[in-house]
C-alpha cells in the first residue's frame, strides 16, 4: 500500500476536450463579403482614405468601414514553404503560403501561392474554384498564381 511511483506504474489517463463540431457564422459584414467571394470577388473595407484588406467589420480605429470590391493585382509581400508538420512529418507536397498585398491597401490576404519560383514582389492573381463549388470562405480560392501566367481554371 505504501508503494510509490515506480515509473512503470505511473498512470496517464486519456481524454479530450472536443465539442462534436463548431459552426462559425460569417458575421454581419462577413456574410456580405462571403457572398461576394462566392461570386468570385475579393473585398476590403474603405476606412476614410484607407482601403483595408481583408474586410473586417470595423476599421483598425474602431470606426465602421464600408465594404468595397478590391481587384488585383496582388503583390507577394512575403512567403514561406511548409515542408513538415509540427511533429516532424514531411508533408506530401510542400505548401507555399504567401502574404498577398494590394497596392493601394493596408492589410493583406494570406493564401497559397502556386509559382515555380516564389519571390517577394511577384504580381499574382487569384484562381477560384468553379462557381458551384464555392461557399463564401477563403477556400473558394484555390491559390494565387503569377499574373503573367494564363489562368488554368
Amino acid at each position, binding site marked *: 500500500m505504501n508503494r510509490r511511483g515506480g515509473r512503470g506504474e505511473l498512470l496517464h*489517463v486519456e*481524454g479530450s*476536450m472536443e*465539442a*462534436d*463540431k*463548431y*459552426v*462559425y*457564422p*460569417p*458575421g*454581419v*459584414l*462577413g*456574410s456580405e463579403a462571403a457572398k461576394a467571394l462566392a461570386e468570385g470577388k475579393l473585398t476590403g473595407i474603405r476606412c476614410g482614405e484607407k482601403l483595408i484588406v481583408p474586410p*473586417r*467589420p*470595423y476599421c*483598425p*480605429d*474602431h470606426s465602421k468601414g464600408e465594404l468595397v470590391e478590391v481587384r488585383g493585382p496582388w503583390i507577394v509581400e512575403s512567403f514561406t514553404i511548409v515542408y513538415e508538420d509540427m511533429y516532424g512529418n514531411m508533408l506530401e507536397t510542400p505548401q507555399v503560403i504567401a502574404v498577398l498585398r494590394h497596392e493601394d491597401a493596408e492589410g493583406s490576404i494570406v493564401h497559397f501561392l502556386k509559382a515555380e519560383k516564389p519571390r517577394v514582389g511577384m504580381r499574382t492573381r487569384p484562381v477560384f474554384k468553379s462557381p458551384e463549388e464555392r461557399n463564401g470562405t477563403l477556400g473558394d480560392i484555390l491559390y494565387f498564381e503569377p499574373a503573367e501566367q494564363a489562368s488554368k481554371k
Partner: protein
Amino acid sequence: MRTNVHVKKRVAIVGAGLTLFARRLLETPAELAWEAASRALGSAGLALKDIDCVVIGSAVDGFDGVHMKGEHIADGAGGLLRPTVRVAMGGGTGVMVPIAAWWHVASGLCKTVLAVGEEKMSHAYPHPQAVFAYIWHPILERPLGPNLIWIFALEMAWYMRECKASKEDIALVSVKNKRNALDNPHAQAAANITVEDVLKSETLVWPVQLLDISPVSDGAAALVLADESVARRITDTPVWIEGVGFALDSSFWYNRDLSYPRYVEQAARMAYKMAGIERPWKEIDIAEPHDPFDYKELHNLEGLMLARKCEAPRLLKEGHFERSGELPTSPSGGLLGMGNPIAASGLMKTAELFWQLRYEAGARQVKKAVHKAVASSWGGLMQTSTVIVLSR
C-alpha cells in the same frame, strides 16, 4: 494576508454598453466585442484613441471554439497596439474584468481602460452543455460522465435541506428576475411567469428544472474606466469603484460544505474592507448577485452578507428584493431574464449598477435612492467569487 492596504487612487466607471443577449447571433466573437466596446466608448463620449489599456474577459475557449480567444478578439475589443490582457475565471470572469481594469488604473499606469467581456456559446455543437463536460477533473470526475447541472443540483439540494427552503421559495427568484427583464431591451428570456410555470418545467437534474436556469446565450458587454482626473473632466456623474474582492476556494469541491459559499464571503469581505463598509446589509442599496440558477442568487446574497445565513428565501418572499423593495436585486433581469453569455453577464451586472447609480436605468430604475451597490459573479467548481462595490 493584507490586501487593499495602501490603495490611494480613485477609479471611476464612465461608460457602459451591451449587445443583445441571444441564443444565436450572426456576429462573430470579435464583432460582438466591437459592438459592446463601441457603445461603451460612445456612452462615455470617448473614441478608441482616448483609451490607454484594454482588459478582455472571456470564460471558456471551448464555447467560441477558438484557442487563445483573447488574442482572437483583441481587435474587436479595441486592443490593437495597446497593452491588452485577458482574465479568465470561468463564471467569475464577468466581475473580474472590471476588477483587473481597476488595478490598471489604480496603479497609475493607465488613465483610461476599456473592459470588454464576450462569450459566443452557440458555436459549439451538439449543445454548449457538451463543452461543460470538460470542466471536471479529467481523472477523478470525468469518467463518471457528469453534466454541468449535476454539481448545481447537488449544491441546490444541500442548500434547500440546510435552509429548509422549498422549490416554491426558490422559484420566486426566477419569477422576479424574468419579470424584471421585461424592461430590459437586451434580454433573451424576459417573461411573466409564475412559480407554477417553474415547477412544471422540464426537470433536468432534480432539483434543477428548466426555468431554474439562465439560458445559453451569445453576447458582449463593455465598460470604460478612468482615473479621477479624466472622469471629472468627461462626466458629472462618474460611478466610483469603492472596493474589489476575489477569492478562489479549493478545487476539491466534494470535500466541503456547499450549503454556504464561504468563498463569496471571503471575496465580499475583501471588497467591503476596501470600501469601508462594515454593515453591508444596511449600507448596500442595490445588488446584482450572480444568478445563473435561481437558488444561486439567494446563495450569493447570503455570501455577500446581504442576508443572514438561510434568511434570503424569507426576505425574497416578503418582497425585500423587488425593484420596489428595500434591497432590489438583479433589477436588470439578471442572467435568468437576460441570458448568460458567461463573461459578458458579470460585466452586464456591473453595467446595470452603473446605470442605476446614475438614475439612467429608465423603466428598470429602482424605487429607492441608491448610493452604494454591489455586484458579484461566481464560477468554477463551486469555488470562484469576484465582487465589486460601486458608489455614486
